[in-house]
Structures are given as C-alpha cells and as structure tokens.
C-alpha cells in the first residue's frame, strides 16, 4: 500500500454543475486508513464530492488526487456503495450475480459463473455475512440486506478505499447500527479508508475518527474531537444542535 500519499488530496478544488458553483476552495487531505463521515445539509454537494473522487466529474479548478493519482473512472482500488439502487433495474437479478458484476461487469463477453469467480463472490459474501440470501433476487431481500450485498460488490475488487453514498437512508435504527458496525470492521480489519456520506451523524459517532463537512460552500476536513461541537453542528444544519458527551462517545440532539 502506498502509505506515503494520503487517500484523498484536494488542492484548491471547486466544482460546478452547469453554471452553478456547487462548492469551491477545498484544500484538505484525508489520511490513509481514516473512517470519515461526510456531512452537510441537503444540496451542499456531498454526492458531488463522491462523484468527483470517482472521476465521473471533473473539477472546475484545482486538483483531485485519490490514492496517489489523479481521480479517474475505472479505478478498481475504489469501491462504491451507491445510493439506493432502482429496483426496476437491479431487482430481478440474483444478489450473487450483482456481486459478480462488480468483478466481471467491466469485462467483455458473457457469463457470471465459473469456479474462480464463484470463490471470489463467496469470499466477499462471507465478509459481509450475506451467504444466506445471496441466491435470492436483489429485489426480494430487505433494505439492510441490499446494503450488505452492495458492500460485498464494492469489496470484490479488494479496494483500498470505500465510498458509501448515504448507506443508512431508509434503514431502521438497528439496521443502521449493523451497517456501521460492518463498515467499522472493514475499516479496522482491512485498513480500508472509508468515506461515509450520511445525514445522521449519531449512528457513526462511536466509530468515525474524522469528518468532511460541507459548510458555507467549502468542504473542510477535521478530526472528530475538533469538529463535533454544538456551535459547528448548529451552523451546519441551520438548526440549534446540542452535543452531549457520553461514556461511549458523544451524541447530539436538536434543541429548541
């Protein structure tokens, strides 16, 4: 692993969509091995940041380096867990075939089976504990199970970085905790750098070490202890927020 370069390096980066400036002036590193939450109000450009790191969107100015090289699509060292997939498209195929596509979907020809591929699929299914329902159609498993399958798909290329775009959306509290625990283990045991886009920071506070926060049109990076305080979160969400330190970390709540 290229431990000398940070997982992400933005240098005076700005992005536009058409004429609209989404954000600008981003200059920060995300160190290798971080577990960072990406937070910000709706429309602040969280998914835009993910898209930028994936190379699907070019910066209007500045540079974007990912894992030591300029961001470009098709990098198997980056795993993507997308926002909720359209079941109109993905619902009919088997979970394990969706996982297999993560490896062979970029190759010519046909076929989603074969001994080597099956072994690779079983490997990541075991890692996310999804063997029991991998033979079912993706549209027939629960939201939490779909997230596990998506994470398995993202892991199949053995990535060094995992980008998760709102993986907690639509999950109940215990489902959220399960996914956060799973991602924590991937980060901790495999040393995979994690950027985790979320609306709700609470389920993540026990495990993240840092945050990318999009505020006032500029993404910034900070450690949990420096960033998670009442003043910043109040500015971030535009509503009064109270941070309370507890034995397991801290929680924040909206105050009147």
């Amino acid at each position, binding site marked *: 692993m290229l431990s000398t370069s940070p997982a992400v390096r933005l240098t005076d980066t700005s992005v536009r969509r058409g004429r609209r400036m989404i954000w600008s002036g981003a200059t920060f590193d995300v160190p290798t091995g971080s577990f960072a939450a990406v937070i910000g109000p709706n429309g602040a450009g969280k998914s835009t940041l993910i898209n930028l790191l994936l190379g699907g969107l070019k910066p209007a100015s500045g540079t974007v380096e990912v894992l030591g090289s300029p961001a470009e*699509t098709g990098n198997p060292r980056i795993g*993507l867990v*997308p926002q909720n997939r359209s079941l109109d498209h993905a619902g009919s195929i*088997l979970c394990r075939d969706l996982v297999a*596509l993560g490896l*062979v979907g*970029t190759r010519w020809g046909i076929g989603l089976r074969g001994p080597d591929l099956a072994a690779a699929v079983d490997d990541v299914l075991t890692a996310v504990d999804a063997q029991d329902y991998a033979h079912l159609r993706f549209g027939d498993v629960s939201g939490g199970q779909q997230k596990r399958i998506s994470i398995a798909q993202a892991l199949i290329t053995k990535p060094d970085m995992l980008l998760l775009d709102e993986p907690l959306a639509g999950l109940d509290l215990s489902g959220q905790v399960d996914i956060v625990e799973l991602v924590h283990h991937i980060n901790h045991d495999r040393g995979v750098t994690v950027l985790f886009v979320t609306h709700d920071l609470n389920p993540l506070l026990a495990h993240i070490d840092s945050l990318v926060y999009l505020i006032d049109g500029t993404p910034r990076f900070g450690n949990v202890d420096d960033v998670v305080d009442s003043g910043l979160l109040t500015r971030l969400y535009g509503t009064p927020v109270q941070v309370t330190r507890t034995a397991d970390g801290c929680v924040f709540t909206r105050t009147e």
Partner: protein
Amino acid sequence: MFIATLVNSTQTQTGLSLLTSPFMINALIAGTLIAIASGAIGYFVLLRDLPFATHAVAHIGFPGATLAVLVGATPVVGLVAACAAGGIAIGAMGHRARNREVVTGTVLAFATGLGLLFNSLGSAQSGLLTNLLFGNILAITTAQVVAFTAIVLVVLVVLAATGRKLLFASVDPDVAAARGVNTRALSAMFLLAMSLIIAISVTVVGVLLIFALLVTPAATAIRLTARPTRVIAIASGIALVSVWGGLIIATYQPWPPSFVITTIACVAWIALPQLMKLRGPVAAPDIVTHIASS
C-alpha cells in the same frame, strides 16, 4: 386454411406441402431469427425499462415505410431506416429528459399520423397498411431473409461481446460508470440494436403487435428464472414457439399468423408462471411482476 386462402391456389394444397413452399421456408427462417434476437433484446428492454420505447420505435418505423413507397423505394428499407433513426433520437434524449413518456407518446402519435398521410398520398399497394400495422410473415422475401440474417447475426455477436458490460450498465448504471464502463456508448449501441430488431420484427407481427414478440416473452421468462442467460434462452424459446405455432396453425385454420403468434405469447405469459407455482414452492418475486407490468 388462412395460408391456403392467401395463396389462392386452385389445386388443394395440404398443410404439409404448404409448409415446404418457398414463402413458408422464408417465413420459418425469418421467424426463427427474429424470435432468437427478440428474446435477447427483450431481456435488456425490461432491465433498462424501455418497453414503451419499443412501442414508439415501431410506430416511428411506420411513416418510414409508407414514405419509402411514396418515393418508389422498398418499404422495409424505409422501415429499418426510420426505426434506427428513432432509436438514435431516443438515445439522444437520454434518461434525464423530463416527461419522457409524454414526449415519446407524442412523437409516436405524430409518426403514426404521418405514416397515414404518406400512405394515402401513395396508396399504390392496398395491403401495405394492414401488413405494416399487423405484420405479414408470409410476405417476407428471400432478399429480406438474407438481410435479416445479417442484421440478426451482427446484433447477436455484439450482444455476446458486450454482454457483461451491458448487463452491468443496465442493472447498476452508477457503479458501472464509476468502474469505467462506457454506459453512454452501450446505451446508444443497445438502442440501435433494439431498433433494428424492432424493424425486422414489424414485418412479422406489425407495428401494433410488436410488444407480444419483443417484450411479452422476456417478461414471462424473467418471472421463471433470474439467471440472465436462462431468461434470454427461455424468452427466445417462447418467441420461437409463438412464431412457429403461428405459421403451422395458420395452415390449418382461417386465422392470420399474427393473431396466433400474439395469442401464444400472451397465453404463455399468463400460464407459465402459474404452472411454475403449481410445480413447487418457487419464490414468485413481486419485483418481477412489477417489472413485467411497468
């Protein structure tokens, strides 16, 4: 009987001798090719949520064919050209277009009106309108069989070569794009391939019945199995039984083949998933019913 009437032969031809007559051989070859291709195309039509687009492309082919007659060209050439142009236009419109269904439906209606105009201006061939709207597999010529064979082979080779990429781009477009799959090029390529297969399928079942050959068999197959290659094989099989059944039954009964073809496809769509349920406790996924009905 339908076919015997059509041939209008003075000698009483039996069913068997009809089945070996030249126009019947052409019909069987063309029908087989189209059935196989429509199974593969139909699967991706469902995955990519394009059933309505297939309907629209067929309708856009209609004025192409009638205009071709008006200017003295072969209707099938105009049909293929207009369908291909329609497919490319839908591709250019993209998924982001708002009111996509309204736009498609409006273009569809306009194209049909235009087709009617060209037909009434030309109206050299009285049977043209019926053949275009409802198909006439028995009118397929040897030259068309040769051209259709080439088109189907090219489409099948392209689908086999791009199969996994196209599947990835169809079921999981965001991740596929992030992983470097050229989803736009694949989309344009697929729409062109789809449009060509629609154009040649119109000669069999016509503009109005295209759904039964291109979408219904795949919608049936996707309820029976989740494995992509099996869905395609079963869909092609259903389409094949429909076309052959249509031709064979039409030699004995006074029914047009298009009627029999669409009927077999629709009966399979209703009956086969029910038979699967009777056979054993196979999970009948709601999502697939949803896809089939969308």
